[in-house]
């Protein structure tokens, strides 16, 4: 039976509250059952001395240590101001309703714990229990609301408020993927994922503190330059031109990415990270759309050529700013509809959350690539031969698209048609596990956070992938993890690399459109290249 972390320990300064012993990480399936887990790469001395790094073995935000007690008190006071604002309609109409209900009704039954991949795969380390961070915020909230009297402690449990509590809570909010798998299992409907997001939001919107990869180098950069990749409109166009040439050579099919076509049938929006990290993905889209005779376009408008919207993970204001730019660009082009490329959080940002942010008269219809591409596969214009995909394929369900949007079947129907050796991961569909990269983790790798993400947050996904391919572990036989989401691909890339899965088991990964192009008989064979095969 695991020993909980006493709430009073959370508030008491110490060098490090929690530690995951690599020996406690649950063993992986063959051939990793004998894999020796290495010790953690330690945080640098500078990180330990200059940053608040007392939660666990890693650091996501790394807020600088206050210089003195006065500075600490000011930060705590700012946190309290933020806490008050979080529970007012003016400042948080966006999520007040679900937040209030989650604050009031948790029975602390811990039913949600086993649903969380991070908690379970950390060897059930108590610091990652889904209800842990929620309970800390809950106690702080009730204490604040009732003045912190004995009755409140008696009814809700007490907690000490100090800088240690506040700084650890900030870090802890970045140990959750916001995948909301735990919320699915809560018998009452409490949402620990939402609570993590609201904690991040409080810090960002009131104190201006957030993980730098998603704020400074993320949404801020996107709003300033046009994309979090740092690419401006000219560079994006250049890169796409290069990708077009490359794709034409590779497939023998002419590809030309159209820009800013007024009145196009579809405006395609990519996560710009694809252009740099996985150029074959936007390339494959171009090949399919051209082959299907679609009148499509990309937008070269700043912000709109990058579908990402990191505000979704931590800040409503940043979220709304980017969303409005996206919507305006689509409206300006007068396209019939927007198709979201293979990026899960961008799907949810524009299709679900955005639906109640932008007044309806401004909105442009937005559709997921998955049903849309399925309609092209079924439309008869693409000549496809499933035998070209004669290797084992499994499918990862991006949480944002599947559990949080209910787009489950179109991608499966495509795979059943085009990948004869398709097999499901278990569990899958709306019960899937997060890749470990959700909520920004995929792009966060400062200090040793990338290692923490790979070895703990992505561990369950890696386990599922291995289980799906247990029938043939021969590295000479290629296997493909289809992950139709940029961030998921990033996390899967890293975990496969860490465990040398390509060399040891022959596991590769990529998107869905790549598999489709690989099956196109008009294209030269071998669009997907499996180097180890």
């Amino acid at each position, binding site marked *: *039976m695991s020993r909980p972390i006493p709430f009073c320990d959370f508030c008491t300064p110490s060098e490090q509250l929690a530690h995951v012993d690599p020996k406690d990480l649950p063993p992986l399936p063959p051939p990793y059952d004998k894999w020796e887990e290495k010790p953690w790469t330690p945080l640098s001395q500078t990180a330990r001395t200059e940053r608040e790094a007392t939660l666990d073995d890693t650091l996501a935000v790394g807020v600088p240590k206050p210089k003195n007690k006065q500075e600490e008190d000011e930060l705590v006071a700012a946190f309290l101001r933020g806490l008050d604002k979080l529970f007012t309609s003016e*400042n948080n109409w966006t999520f007040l309703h679900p937040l209030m209900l989650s604050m009031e009704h948790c029975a602390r039954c*811990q*039913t949600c714990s086993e649903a969380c991949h991070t908690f379970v795969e950390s060897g059930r380390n108590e610091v990652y229990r889904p209800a842990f961070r929620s309970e800390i915020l809950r106690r702080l909230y009730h204490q604040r609301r009732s003045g912190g009297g004995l009755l409140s*402690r008696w009814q809700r449990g007490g907690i000490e408020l100090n800088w240690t509590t506040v700084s650890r809570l900030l870090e802890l909010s970045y140990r959750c993927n916001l995948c909301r798998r735990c919320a699915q299992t809560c018998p009452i409907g409490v949402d620990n994922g939402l609570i993590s997001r609201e904690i991040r939001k409080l810090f960002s919107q009131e104190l201006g503190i957030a993980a730098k990869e998603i704020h400074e180098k993320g949404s801020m950069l996107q709003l300033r330059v046009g994309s979090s990749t740092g690419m401006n409109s000219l560079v994006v166009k250049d890169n796409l031109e290069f990708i077009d040439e490359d794709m034409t050579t590779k497939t023998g099919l002419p590809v030309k990415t159209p820009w800013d076509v007024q009145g196009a049938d579809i405006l395609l929006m990519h996560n710009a990270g694809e252009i740099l990290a996985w150029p074959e993905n936007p390339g494959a889209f171009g090949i399919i759309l051209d082959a299907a005779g679609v009148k499509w376009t990309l937008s070269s408008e700043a912000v709109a050529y990058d579908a990402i919207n990191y505000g979704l993970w931590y800040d409503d204001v940043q979220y709304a700013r980017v969303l409005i730019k996206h919507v305006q660009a689509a409206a300006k082009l007068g396209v019939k509809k927007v198709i979201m490329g293979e990026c899960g959080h961008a799907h949810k940002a524009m299709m679900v959350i955005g639906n109640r942010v932008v007044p309806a008269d401004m909105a442009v219809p937005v559709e997921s690539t998955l049903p849309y591409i399925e309609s092209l596969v079924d439309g008869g214009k693409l000549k496809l031969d499933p035998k070209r995909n004669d290797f084992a394929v499994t499918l990862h369900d991006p949480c944002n698209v599947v*559990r949080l949007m209910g787009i489950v079947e179109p991608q499966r129907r495509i795979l059943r048609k085009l990948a004869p050796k398709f097999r499901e991961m278990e569990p899958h569909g709306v019960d899937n596990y997060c890749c470990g990269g959700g909520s920004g983790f995929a792009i966060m790798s400062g200090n040793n956070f990338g290692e923490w993400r790979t070895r703990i947050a992505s561990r369950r996904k890696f386990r599922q992938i291995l289980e799906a391919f247990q029938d043939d572990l021969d590295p000479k036989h290629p296997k493909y993890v289809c992950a139709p989401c940029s961030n998921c691909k990033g996390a899967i890339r890293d975990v496969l690399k860490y465990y040398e899965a390509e060399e040891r088991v022959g596991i590769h990964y990529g998107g869905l459109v790549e598999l489709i192009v690989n099956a196109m008989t008009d294209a030269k064979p071998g669009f997907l290249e499996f180097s180890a095969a």
Partner: protein
Amino acid sequence: MVLYLVPFAAAVIFIIAVVVRALKIRSLPIHLRWELYPVAHEKNARYGGSFFEHVDWWKKPRESSMAGELGVMIPEILLLKGVHEHNRSLWWRSFPFHFGLYVLAGFVALLLVGALAMAADVEVGPRAHGLGLVLHWLTLIAGVGGCALLALGSLALLVRRLSDPVLREYSAVADFLNLVLFLAAAGVTLAAWATADRDFFWLRGFFYGVVTFHFESGVPFPPLVVAEIVLGSVLLAYIPLTHMSHFFTKYFMWHDIRWDDKVNEKGGKMDARIKELLGQKVSWSAPHIQGEGKKSWLDVATEEVTKK
């Protein structure tokens, strides 16, 4: 007479607390969509599918099934299906507790019906015939069965909360006392039945007084019957004041959040409301916002951040 005031007061507190809480929840502003699949009213809820699975989904008629929602809600509320699936060891304790409460709600309803029958000169009891006899047995089974389930459940939950170090750390004092209160109420009712009220004659008599407004029975109630009435009333008033109000707020959690996939459409009520909300002043102070109660949501969402 005083004894009659207790359940009346409790019922009034119960109703006021439930109404106030429900109104408070209802008065919260529209939130951004935050649904979680499967959404029970969707046609493809079986596997968690949604309207987003269709090309041009906005042109298709939205199919929403009330039966789908009820099909999930009813087993969830009555049988705690989610706990059964995700936390079986808790379910063995939690199910008797919750089901016991439902049976006891039925018990109170049966006592009221019995009292009304008596007021209409129908004899209710073990020697009665027809309806009176049926009512007697149903009441007896519901009363004893419900209390036994509740006592068992609350005791098992209490033992678990005390013995499991995780649950103990997460629990507040009130969590333990709540369970003790349930256990006491069920235990006292069982004791009253076993020693003084084998046919629930006294309890039904009490309800007879309630429905006929005869608040003087002439003969004093046995002390254990008085205790069960007082404890039952205290519970009735107390539950909606605590997090145990989830017995009805769960409806809002599921229906208004998990399953709320209503699309904001041009010219609709929701759209008008959202426009109003966007006009509210923001006071977040971070450098990239600096709302300070002067800028509206629309202002901060549309301002350029180039220099921030």
